[in-house]
């Protein structure tokens, strides 16, 4: 043990988990009412500190997994406690670590803070665990573990139809996971039959040889779970009701962090394990992504309920992330990864502001709110920045991701990119329209007396605004860390898809894949054919 490096990732996962238990064990009586929240915030800040340490120590131009900790967990089942991080998961972990303390600060529970804080911390442990798991079953455990706290957060602290929303969320996601677990076990057994080793570790399994049909079926099994979780059209029907009925904290965490578990799962597992099936099914997923983008945007236009509007805009945004992923180009995938982080920051800010608005006015209906820019100028300003970032205005973070995704897709799948671009235009339409409704116009008496953001709320939203602007102006440090891992993944996909080509092409494609340039290798293989 003395030679092993400090297990940063294990600590990162365990701190919130232990914190949740501690908070749950502090009695309600005999301590001040704010104790539980204070402990919870402290725990999440310590987690953030560990995450920042990891970020600082992260080796920038290294494509593989870092901070690996690997211990046998259940020997005869082949399950390992295997954690690791690369450029793809690094910023998702950072995003989660930043958003959890902000959520605990900015979206406090109306009642029973003890249970609430404990559930949120458990959710943080589960989310962080999912992002850093390299063992399939370990990932599944964390992935499933997110359901329980989320169920209780929606069902316990949500709004009127919270019971319905919680159950619908739970059943949809759990049913999706049924396929995922079976698929994971099947991959491991196929690997065992080829190599004689039973393991669920991703680095080992990614070299499993799969026949075309098996690969496609397994891809579908995995993607079913991730598509529900994300959600990707047409598996999204749980999300508007869950986002709307959840308390603000639930909406923030569902849309910003947990939605990314789905898209992250696709990138981490589908692309690594089933590169050939990924290529085969690319048109399907691209089409679903584009439908999601356009459908989400059009439906969002028709919403007068701000929370539902954001929910559908989120569906459109996730469509972009999927589009970038399945472009299977370095740019597109980098864009998808950075857009996951950007979308998380943007939508967290949106839901927080809408939550604060609701606290003041008890309404999310855009037509009941008018001219708030006179009474709440800071809120209007914050909303403007976040909204513009969401639309993808250059200089703010949303632009970087969308630009990379669209340009990465345009190279290889031109017409999908063109169709998706309309989504951006419609996004501008519904967001600006919502802004007009709420912040412009002639304020009524109630609107005039609406309080502006308090100092505490401004301090909570400030980090998000700073990050939104910073990532928009200077994304290079982030891109530098994401790109090596993305290029390696794209190279893996290319290499695997080319091994099926006639032998003449193998040497050629291997050399091009090794150089990491995917656009060069595609025509190379085509020429050999």
């Amino acid at each position, binding site marked *: 043990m003395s030679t092993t490096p400090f297990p940063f990732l294990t600590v990162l996962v365990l701190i919130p988990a232990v914190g949740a238990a501690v908070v749950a064990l502090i009695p309600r009586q005999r301590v001040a009412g704010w104790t539980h929240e204070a402990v919870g915030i402290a725990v999440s800040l310590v987690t953030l500190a560990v995450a920042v340490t990891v970020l600082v120590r992260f080796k920038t131009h290294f494509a593989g997994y870092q901070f690996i900790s690997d211990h046998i967990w259940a020997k005869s089942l082949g399950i390992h406690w295997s954690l690791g991080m690369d450029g793809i998961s690094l910023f998702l972990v950072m995003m989660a670590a930043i958003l959890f303390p902000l959520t605990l600060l900015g979206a406090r529970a109306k009642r029973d803070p003890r249970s609430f804080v404990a559930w949120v911390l458990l959710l943080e442990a589960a989310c962080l665990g999912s992002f850093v798991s390299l063992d399939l079953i370990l990932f599944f455990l964390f992935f499933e573990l997110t359901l329980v706290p989320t169920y209780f957060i929606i069902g316990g602290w949500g709004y009127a139809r919270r019971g319905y929303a919680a159950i619908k969320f739970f059943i949809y996601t*759990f049913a999706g996971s049924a396929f995922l677990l079976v698929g994971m076990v099947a991959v491991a057994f196929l690997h065992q039959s080829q190599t004689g080793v039973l393991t669920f570790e991703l680095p080992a399994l990614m070299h499993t040889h799969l026949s075309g049909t098996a690969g496609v079926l397994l891809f579908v099994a995995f993607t079913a779970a991730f598509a529900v979780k994300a959600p990707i059209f047409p598996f999204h029907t749980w999300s508007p009701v869950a986002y709307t009925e959840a308390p603000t904290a639930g909406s923030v965490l569902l849309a910003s962090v947990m939605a990314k578990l789905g898209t992250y799962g696709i990138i981490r597992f589908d692309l690594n394990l089933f590169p050939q099936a990924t290529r085969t099914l690319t048109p399907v997923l691209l089409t679903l992504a584009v439908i999601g983008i356009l459908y989400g945007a059009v439906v969002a236009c028709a919403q007068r309920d701000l929370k539902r509007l954001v929910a559908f805009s989120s569906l459109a945004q996730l469509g972009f992330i999927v589009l970038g992923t399945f472009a299977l180009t370095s740019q597109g995938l980098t864009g998808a990864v950075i857009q996951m982080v950007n979308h998380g920051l943007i939508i967290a800010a949106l839901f927080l502001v809408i939550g604060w608005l609701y606290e003041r006015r008890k309404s999310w209906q855009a037509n009941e709110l008018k001219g708030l820019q006179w009474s709440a100028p800071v809120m209007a300003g914050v909303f403007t920045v976040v909204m513009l970032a969401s639309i993808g205005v250059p200089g703010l973070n949303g632009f970087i991701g969308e630009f990379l995704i669209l340009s990465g897709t345009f190279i290889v799948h031109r017409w999908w990119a063109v169709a998706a671009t309309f989504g951006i235009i419609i996004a501008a339409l519904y967001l600006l329209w919502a802004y007009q409704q709420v912040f412009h116009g002639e304020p009524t008496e109630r609107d005039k007396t609406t309080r502006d953001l308090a100092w505490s709320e401004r301090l909570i939203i400030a980090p998000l605004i700073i990050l939104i602007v910073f990532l928009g102006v200077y994304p290079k440090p982030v891109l530098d860390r994401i790109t090596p891992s993305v290029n390696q993944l794209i190279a893996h996909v290319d290499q695997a898809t080319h091994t099926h080509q006639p032998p003449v092409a193998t040497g050629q494609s291997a050399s091009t894949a090794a150089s990491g340039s995917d656009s060069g290798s595609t025509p190379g293989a085509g020429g050999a054919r």
Partner: protein
Amino acid sequence: MSTLLFAAASSAYGAKIHTPHIDYLSILPILIMMGGAVLLVTVSSLFRQVMGVGSATFITVGTAVATLVAALFQWDHVVTHGAKVTIAGSIAYDGFSVFIQIVVAIAMLLTALIADGYLKREGIDGPEFHVLAMLSASGAMLMGSANDLIVIFLGLEILSIALYVLAAFNHKRAESGEAALKYFVLGAFSSAVFVYGIALVYGATGSSNLPQIADYLSKNVVASNGVLLAGLALLLVGFGFKIAAVPFHMWSPDVYQGSPSPVTGLMAAIAKAGAFAALLRVFVSSFGTLRADWQPIVWGIAILSLVVGAFAALVQKDIKRMMAYSSINHAGFILLGVQAATARGVSASLYYLFAYMFMVIGTFAVITVVARDGDFGHQLTDYRGLGARQPLLALAFAVLLLAQAGAPFTTGFLAKFTVVAAAVDVHSYALAVIAMASAAVAAFFYLRVVVAMYSPVGAVGDLSDRDAGELNANPTLVTSPANVAVSGHGQTEAVASLSVLTEGPPTSAVADRMVRVPGLTTVAIGLSVGFTIVFGIIPGPIVDFAHQATLLFT
């Protein structure tokens, strides 16, 4: 005396009767368990006046611990000296049988702890409860060790007859008698079917000894094996009844509901352990060569159990009925391991039985105490507000229910994972997916109880802080066609009507008072929860234990 008789007999007929050599070590736990029962019934008859429930519990716990120690000693012995068959080939002394002895001994220990408080509360004076429980436990253990169809039947009957009486044990409750009668009539019927099955198998293969049957089947290709298959089918019906698999499950909701709550826990744990042990040994090891014939049937039974168990549990208002259907669902999961008919499947089933034993007994321990004096408070409404009144009890119950739902980092998840892995291993993908999907449905009704516990007693339809006007305005704004379709086609109504189950008045006026949790019951619940969580987080020891037990399978 007996030697004299034997001597007389041999001299009279000129032939010596060969009594088999009895390897007492191989049946030591069973002997201890039976001996404990005999001891207790003797002591309590002689000292009726001074014997209370407490001393009977003491003897029972002592017996269970001694059985456990003996079984652990056996384990050590089997690991070092290897497996064998003893007592003229009728008893299998292997890792598999020792595993079952351990599971049943622990189940007995926990049940004795729970029953103590129950008997005192209900004012039932009776060491007989413990005597019968120990006898039924010894029957289950015998089933685990049996290497001969006749011995399996012997164990089955010892197990069942004691359980019939135990089901009727609370004579103050009419349901208890009804449950016992139903259980007895149907149980006797299934025993008859089982015996007929043994007869047919004997007729077809010429032996009731499991290794000899296997030997016969591997050496002979039976051209027309109608009798054999009919016998196999009847055996399966007999086992199906004991494990409460659909379509042989009809008795279980009524019996689970009517039996005294600690008995239900015991029944769920040991009847399953014993019957599944025998089922695995008979079908996987003896009739393994015929697996192409029986696997599709078990496949169908597994799917029916999974689906019927999960969906029927959704509409139950009585928690014990709900648990009965949940136990049917669990039986479906364990059948996944049987259906696989591989070493992996056997070890998965064993692990599942072990994990399930703790979960179900712990669950029924909580049900016992929440039911209050008279054992009647079993409506879901009786659980409302438990989280606020008795947070630790509610937390323990929540953990046990979530574990049964398959929540990560509990033994419940690993149990489901291992059986699903076994099914996938033999390419039963559809079965595996259906099992997991049924787990999603099952999670729903477990969560409903948890939610009921954490909602206040009086709160019905509280709208928190949202205006009613807004609510009315909301549905008209739903423009997503998918959403309209969902809410228009009754899903909302179904969910609404299901949530009604946890609302309405509780069974008793005292429902919002604290329930008393006896010290020994606390220990039992603590052990169950501890096992479920600790070995969920550190799965190695128990998983490897079940794995090793399978390797030492004769």
